[in-house]
């Protein structure tokens, strides 16, 4: 129908698309690019020189400039991300996400099963409560665990007596991570499982399948893409969480620093190169997440209706 569209509509269309692209380039793409440019400054200079050389019709010189830029950038970059404190931060981030994501996955499946396969009073309230952590400030999410498990908290005296440390240690980081990623799996599964209905499961049970068999062979194949989608979003947030983890972490280098916290410490020490090098790893994680998300949407036709 585009050939029938009047000219003024077509100019309007081009203007609107242009304005939207410009806005996104300025507010979204530029910050992303600047992470990599700050992490690999020599490479960025090399690329700029290279593009200028191409402009002057000197492709060999361009390749040389780009190549030497990357060569100069690589060793300080590699040093920053393989330094022992950075490696410890990467390890702690993987541990925290490695516990928080499976925990919220099991919860997400259980609560979605209860909500979508049965009718009970208070269901609407339960759905709202599952979403509740999304509207709590990350700083408050950290604070509540300090009030529970800190030295002066509810369980503080008991914990001190038994020499168990939760806050300002790894368990606190895991708890805060679980809190901020709490709803992600459930809020993807509930709409998918509602749409699937209960007929398949009812039939399986009528044919003599056990509850576990029904879930494993009937429900799971139906919800696997939604499940993966939820896990992906949950993991991205778990690895990138800053505010909540910052409050419950003791900020001890090499011990209770996750990757985002390590970025903050390096940045506050004016070690910008190393801060952006570690930050670029997190930015890569975000890009991988977006690519996988795109693949999942394409594979299982998620309407992009996910509200974060």
């Amino acid at each position, binding site marked *: 129908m585009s050939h029938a569209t009047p000219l003024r509509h077509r100019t*309007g269309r081009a203007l*609107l*698309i242009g*304005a*939207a*692209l410009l806005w*996104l380039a300025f507010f*979204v793409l*530029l*910050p992303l690019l*600047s*992470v990599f440019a*700050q992490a690999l400054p020599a490479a960025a200079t090399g690329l700029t020189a290279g593009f200028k050389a191409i402009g002057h019709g000197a492709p060999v010189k361009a390749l040389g400039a780009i190549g030497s830029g990357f060569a100069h950038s690589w060793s300080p970059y590699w040093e920053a991300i393989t330094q022992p404190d950075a490696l410890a931060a990467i390890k702690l981030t993987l541990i925290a996400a490695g516990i928080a994501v499976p925990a919220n996955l099991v*919860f997400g499946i*259980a*609560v979605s099963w209860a909500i979508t*396969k*049965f*009718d*009970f009073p208070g269901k609407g309230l*339960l759905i*709202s*409560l*599952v979403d*509740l952590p999304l*509207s*709590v*400030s*990350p*700083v*408050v999410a950290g*604070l509540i*665990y*300090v*009030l*529970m498990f800190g030295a002066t908290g*509810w369980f503080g005296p008991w914990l001190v007596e038994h020499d168990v440390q939760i806050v300002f240690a790894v368990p606190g980081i895991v*708890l805060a991570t679980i809190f901020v990623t709490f709803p992600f799996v459930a809020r993807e599964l509930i709409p998918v499982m509602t749409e699937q209905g*209960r007929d398949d*499961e*009812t039939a399986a*049970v009528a044919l003599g399948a*056990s509850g576990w068999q029904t879930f494993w062979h009937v429900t799971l194949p139906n919800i696997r893409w939604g499940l993966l989608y939820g896990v992906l979003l949950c993991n991205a947030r778990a*690895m*990138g969480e*800053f*505010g909540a983890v*910052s*409050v419950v972490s003791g900020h001890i280098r090499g011990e209770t620093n996750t*990757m*985002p916290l390590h*970025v903050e410490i390096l940045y506050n020490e004016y070690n910008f190169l190393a*801060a*952006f090098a570690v*930050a670029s790893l*997190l*930015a890569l994680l*975000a890009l991988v997440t977006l690519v996988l998300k795109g693949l999942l949407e394409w594979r299982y036709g998620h309407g992009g209706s996910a*509200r*974060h």
Partner: protein
Amino acid sequence: MTRRSVIPGFGLTLGFGLLYLSLLVLIPLSTIFVKSAGMGWHDFVRVAFASRTLAAYRLSFGAAAAAAAVNLAAGLLVAWVLVRYDFAGKKLVSAMVDLPFALPTAVAGIALTALYAPNGWIGQFLSPLGIKIAYTPIGITIALIFIGLPLVVRTIEPVLADMPREVEEAAETLGATRLQTFTRVLLPALFPAMLTGFALAFARGIGEYGSVIFISGNMPFATEIAPLRIVGQLEEFDYAGATAIAAVMLVVSFAMLFFINLVQIWARRRMEA
């Protein structure tokens, strides 16, 4: 409606779900209100509404409202382009909208600061003109614009996609101008979604921490946001002070949540009518 389902696992899944929800979310959150209630009204007001904290609320609420308003316009534009037009690279543009959600907030924070600092890619052009962005409330607003964009776009997008185009075509056939069609037909239909998007972005903005603290400068009474006041009180081991501010912020968040639910109910009723 049959209350009894033959599908097994109701007790197990609901029981586990409620236990997990209570232990990890509800009981920890209740500490804020229990501790606040224990402070006594007079003490609570004194700490929760001290002048430095009041300045922080004003800044957080003001910057969040300004950013949400900007995102409302920009989000409507982006959602419109994504729903109504087909063009090369549309998938890529859609992925860009989700980037602020996927990018860890601390990374966004240092990236934006690097861009808008006086020697940054953008800041170097603005500082000769006497415009300061980093370490001012404008910088805070820019960080919140970045964070809030996907919330507004993804709220408006599905509603816009479901809207029948015949209504617009009818309006145009009846002689309405493009502007009239937009303000009289489209905007009223999109209003609930826009209100929800605004409220979501606003609620996210007042609690946001990671992307803001690097660009904000953190000067008391000038560029100190409310979540940072909580962290400041905690660093001074003033748990009561931190809790009082957290209680105020939680009440505002819950009020926003309630408001969003009301808007959704209202929108659903209006659709049915």
